[in-house]
């Protein structure tokens, strides 16, 4: 039943007919198209939907619109007046208060309400006021800064337009902390994410997921669903292609919709399109599915047992990949070692939980071309995989990547939403939008593999590594997804940080009846890195060597080939160790803190882009060719850019398909391109969203964008400059080789007073020669990697390094950990945008600390998810986040663009070990099983007390002869 209601929103009256059961959030977004208010969870947990009602922040997802008519509602769209940002919005822009921007509208509104009632809040008051707004990207550090410094941006303050903060005299290219180029859109709610987009005549789709974790599909009846008024199309496995898909070409094992078997709760079984989402949801309930239950495997160690039921027939013992790396002779080396210790560790099934749920919109043109809007990190892989399952050439598919609200790996593969929206759209002849609910995101998964790890370490008397051996079982869930690469990464990256003469790794990627795991920030490496770092710190304790010192003694050096043939170029790892030790006052603290206080060290590093891509030479094709002979070179360029100068010379449009997902790639690419063009970044515009406009870039994974796309854009810029030089030379009366360009001027080398405006030269070029365009591309160097099986994984043109010191306190009675301080130094090469680098580090520390202490998807015996929501799956709030100091050490990577490497994923790696070490330091017990929850801490302390008491008692016993 519809009732006409009138709302006062941002001072304006709206009359709308709504149903009584609609939330204010849905009315704002779907009926009034005020899409700045975000839906992150729809259950009060995240704060993305925050609006002000009579000045007070509330969750619009928990309000029935029918009960708030007549009250004054402020949404994010109501803050900036006549295009002028509020001081707080300006502060968010300038101080790095946002990354993906999905939490930003809610965050800004909560902070606005706070400042309204308390213009000068204390740090604690700010944290209290923002405790209901989750952010997954920033680690809250930039947000705190933005609110604390808001006063600096009061009327008339700087920064009216974002990336023009730097005054023209100031350099805004490489090395400058210019604000993100999308910041103003994101603080005002103007940035459009996939779910914010509506196409004319658009329908809405939903997927029915399996209600059981393992079983055969016996019968499926959709007749009632089809008969429901408003339903436009219903598809089941019988209606869709038999072509399987996935990520690794050798392991395509996913059905678009289940054909005969379901393998985890939520496994897609049917898909519905209807006139609205609510009708589609109702239709799902009318689909009858009969299953024959099969035994459920939720434990990888059970799944590999002889005789366990097979989840896929083709994976014997449920193992889809085994890795065997064997370098040197570990057994002999352990025999020769002065000290050997072996420990087992267990990781957790961490889920990325980006604030923005996955979403897709598919629309077919009459000429048979598909346009897909999707919240993805890897547009070209989605394009490729869509071509594969739809059996159409890749060229008929246009992928548009609107603003993306964080990914961290869960958006690194083609989703059922991508495929089903296209199939449903074809079936009903209308554009179809599909958006995951928070629960569906968890059911789709692609989070971190839970790894069962055994690590053995052999050292000489001085603590130098003689041998390392690991055996890892990766619990992969029901499909392979990225799992092959994950299993290799878990082994290949261990030798990059410390020198080790002998190394062995056995890895097994195991199928279980849980949502598939995939590539999460640090892909495969954080848990083994955690295990190794813990073991190294334990060894340091045993040998009486300072834990930082033992790391120094083993630290990787520049220009070194690791024993697994990874080619380390620049490496300032030791410098990061020295810097964190100094900055954290390690010497004064380690071993000297009172009980309950702890300090710990962890280190890590990562690739700056994978040396090889998943699809080898086949990116141009829409279906799989047979296995190709492997050649040690990139067949095609991994990053490609075009830059086109506007006809008046006042702007340059950069086109590159690099996926901006919140990490800030648009901004650093603009900076690098501007630098090579010689113009201010504010004269650049970015086109990275549309595959029709922007040439191929493989996407946001393996920390590759700054490095690889950076090369492509700077080469494109350089090409333009080369074309301009003869014109400038003619104007300046010098040789073309003498011309230089910087910040919008072209001048004679060595005499900047002889200069001409860059734009004037560009105009001249156009007038004489037509479009002024440059192109650039990047291929990783040839010959990367060794000659053994799996040698490609872990190869990269460059490697990052970092060290983190964590300080915390533990409530020894309850086990509660309060992470107080992090000190981090990274060797990320030369930072292109320091603020962006620190933002990545701050976000990674908070995410990693949460991962170590509170995160993990839990499963019931029947395979159901216990906590598929943001009140069961806890991520850190602003009140949990530590104080963070992030620093970079001087470094220059000759292979990188402007000396840069990576920061996005490497920043996660030191965190887990640092936290675990600090907890051990505070409590006297090592907990080797993630997450390190208060309960585990209390239990471990109790066990240790009992063991100590028993030992004392034994010592007191009279000694009797044997």
């Amino acid at each position, binding site marked *: *039943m519809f009732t006409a209601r009138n709302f006062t929103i941002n001072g304006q009256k709206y009359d709308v007919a709504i*149903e*009584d*059961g*609609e*939330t204010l959030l*849905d009315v704002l977004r779907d009926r009034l198209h005020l899409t700045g208010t975000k839906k992150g969870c*729809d*259950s*009060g*947990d995240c*704060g993305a939907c*925050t609006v002000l*009602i009579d000045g*007070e*922040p*509330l*969750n619009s*997802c*928990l*309000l*029935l619109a*029918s*009960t708030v008519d007549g009250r004054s509602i402020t949404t994010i769209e109501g803050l900036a007046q006549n295009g002028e940002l509020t001081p707080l919005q300006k502060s968010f822009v300038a101080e790095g208060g946002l990354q993906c921007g999905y939490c930003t509208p809610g965050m800004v509104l*909560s902070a606005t309400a706070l400042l309204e009632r308390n213009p000068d809040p204390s740090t604690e008051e700010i*944290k*209290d*006021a*923002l*405790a*209901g*707004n989750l952010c997954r990207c920033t680690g809250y550090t930039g947000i705190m800064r933005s609110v604390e410094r808001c006063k600096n941006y009061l009327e008339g303050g700087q920064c009216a337009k974002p990336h023009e903060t730097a005054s023209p005299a100031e350099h805004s290219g490489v090395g400058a902390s210019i604000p993100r180029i999308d910041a103003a859109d994101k603080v005002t709610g103007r940035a459009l994410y996939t779910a914010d987009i509506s196409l004319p005549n658009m329908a809405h789709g939903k997927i029915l997921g399996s209600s059981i974790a393992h079983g055969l599909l016996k019968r499926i009846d959709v007749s009632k669903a089809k008969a429901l008024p408003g339903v436009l199309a219903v598809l089941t496995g019988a209606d869709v292609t038999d072509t399987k898909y996935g990520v690794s070409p050798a392991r395509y094992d996913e059905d678009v919709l289940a054909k005969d078997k379901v393998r985890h709760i939520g496994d897609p079984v049917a898909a519905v399109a209807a006139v609205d*989402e*609510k009708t589609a*949801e*109702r239709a799902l309930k009318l689909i009858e599915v009969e299953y024959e239950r099969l035994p459920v495997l939720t434990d990888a160690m059970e799944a590999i047992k002889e005789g366990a039921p097979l989840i896929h027939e083709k994976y014997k013992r449920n193992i889809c990949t085994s890795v065997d790396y064997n370098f040197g002779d570990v057994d002999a080396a352990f025999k020769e070692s002065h000290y050997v210790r072996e420990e087992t560790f267990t990781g957790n099934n961490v889920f990325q939980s980006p604030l923005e749920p996955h979403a897709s919109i598919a629309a077919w043109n009459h000429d048979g071309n598909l346009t897909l809007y999707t919240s993805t990190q890897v547009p070209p892989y989605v394009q490729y995989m869509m071509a594969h399952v739809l059996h159409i050439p890749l060229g008929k598919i246009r992928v548009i990547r609107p603003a993306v609200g964080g990914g961290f790996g869960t958006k690194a593969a083609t989703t059922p939403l991508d495929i089903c929206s296209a199939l449903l759209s074809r079936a009903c002849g209308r554009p179809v939008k599909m958006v995951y*609910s928070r629960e569906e995101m968890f059911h789709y998964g692609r989070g971190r593999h839970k790894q069962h790890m055994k690590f053995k370490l052999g050292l000489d008397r001085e603590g130098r590594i003689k041998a390392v051996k690991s055996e890892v079982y990766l619990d992969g869930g029901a499909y392979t997804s990225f799992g092959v690469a994950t299993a290799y990464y878990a082994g290949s990256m261990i030798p990059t940080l410390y020198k080790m003469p002998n190394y062995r790794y056995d890895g097994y990627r195991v199928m279980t009846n849980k949502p598939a795991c995939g590539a999460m920030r640090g892909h495969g490496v954080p848990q083994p890195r955690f295990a190794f770092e813990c073991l190294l710190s334990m060894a340091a304790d045993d040998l009486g060597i300072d834990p930082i010192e033992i790391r120094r003694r083993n630290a990787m050096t520049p220009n070194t080939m690791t024993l697994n043939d990874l080619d380390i170029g620049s490496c300032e790892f030791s410098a990061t160790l020295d810097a964190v030790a100094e900055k954290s006052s390690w010497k004064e603290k380690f071993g000297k803190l009172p009980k309950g206080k702890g300090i710990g060290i962890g280190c890590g590093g990562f690739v700056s882009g994978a040396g090889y891509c998943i699809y080898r030479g086949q990116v141009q094709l829409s279906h799989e060719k047979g296995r190709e002979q492997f050649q040690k070179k990139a067949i095609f360029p991994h990053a490609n850019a075009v830059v086109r100068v506007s006809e008046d010379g006042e702007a340059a449009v950069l086109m590159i398909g690099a996926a901006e997902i919140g990490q800030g790639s648009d901004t650093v690419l603009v900076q690098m391109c501007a630098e090579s063009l010689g113009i201010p970044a504010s004269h650049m515009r970015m086109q990275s969203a549309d595959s029709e406009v922007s040439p191929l870039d493989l996407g946001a994974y393996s920390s590759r964008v700054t490095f690889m796309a950076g090369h492509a854009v700077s080469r494109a810029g350089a090409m333009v400059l080369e074309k301009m030089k003869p014109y400038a030379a003619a104007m300046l009366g010098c040789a073309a080789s003498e011309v230089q360009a910087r910040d919008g001027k072209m001048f004679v080398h060595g005499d900047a007073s002889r200069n001409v405006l860059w734009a004037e030269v560009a105009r001249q070029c156009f007038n004489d020669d037509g479009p002024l365009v440059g192109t650039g591309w990047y291929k990783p160097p040839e010959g990367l990697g060794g000659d053994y099986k799996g040698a490609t994984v872990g190869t990269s043109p460059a490697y990052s390094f970092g060290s983190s010191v964590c300080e915390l306190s533990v409530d020894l*009675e*309850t086990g*509660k950990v*309060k992470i107080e301080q992090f000190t981090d130094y990274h060797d990320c090469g030369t930072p292109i945008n320091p603020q962006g680098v620190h933002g990545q580090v701050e976000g990674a520390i908070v995410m990693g600390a949460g991962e170590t202490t*509170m995160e993990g998807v*839990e499963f019931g015996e029947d395979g159901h998810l*216990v*906590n598929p929501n943001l*009140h*069961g799956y*806890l991520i*850190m*709030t*602003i*009140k*949990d986040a530590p104080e963070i100091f992030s620093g970079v050490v001087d470094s220059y990577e000759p292979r990188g663009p402007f000396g840069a490497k990576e920061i996005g994923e490497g920043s996660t790696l030191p965190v887990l070990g640092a936290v675990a070490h600090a907890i051990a330091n505070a409590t006297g017990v090592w907990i080797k099983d993630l997450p390190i*929850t*208060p*309960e585990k801490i*209390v*239990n471990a302390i109790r066990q240790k007390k009992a063991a100590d008491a028993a030992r004392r008692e034994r010592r007191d016993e009279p000694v009797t002869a044997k």
Partner: protein
Amino acid sequence: MHISSIEVHKAATLDEASALMGRFAPDVRLLAGGTDVLVDLKTARFSVGHLVALGAIKNLRGVTEEREGLRIGALTTIAELGRSPLIAGAYDALRDATSRMATPQVRNAATVGGNVAGAVPCADLPPILIAMNATALLVSDKGERTVLLEDLVVGPRQTILRDNELLAAVNVPRPPARFGAAYARFGLREANAIAVAGVAVALVLNDDRTVRSARIALCAVAPVPKLVKAASRLLVGRVLDESACAQAAALAMAAAEPIADLRGSAEYRCELVGTLTRRALAAAQQRIGR
């Protein structure tokens, strides 16, 4: 998930609300702040055809000082309660609960009535209110009655409220001299974390610092907010030294009947009850000292 078709009736008075409840029972729920009801409807914990919205009933909202003590209208939001100037002095302990539960946004919507009458075992307000001897004023179009708050809830999400009856107010008697109360809770995050366990304590001391009365109530470790009567008996007449507190903690642990779930095992919860009891006793005592 979207909420399936539902009709919202906005009651203007208590009587009207009661009549509407009677008319549509059992296919109806009261809607106060909606922070539980909306989540429950979306997740289909229950589904009803009608909601009776209380928002327009003016006299249900607000905190007032009466002769016998505080009257907290059922529609008072948690945020309003927390910032009411009347929550001062002896009533301060209420803020231990209001300031630590949920999020600012939720506290701006969630009501005291919903938190209490919702009867969710991990609700934060009932234990401290029970410790402070609060009573509940229940009203229907047929009349009204007052019950002890500890008698209101009989099971998870179950109360003694009749179909057409609603909670109009919670009354907290004015504390006597030498009174101190505190609520200690444990959650897995610094903010927005449901209590894994909570312990509320209200103490009245004699001039010689022996205990005149002690009430200890538990959160999230039993099907209902549970008053630990044995602890009251134990403590009366004693000085709150370490051993008395330890014994009270042991009794609280014995009274707890926690479930094991995602947030903690039963054993861990019991252990927390012990720790929190000692901490709440200490905090309450300290407040008397001031």
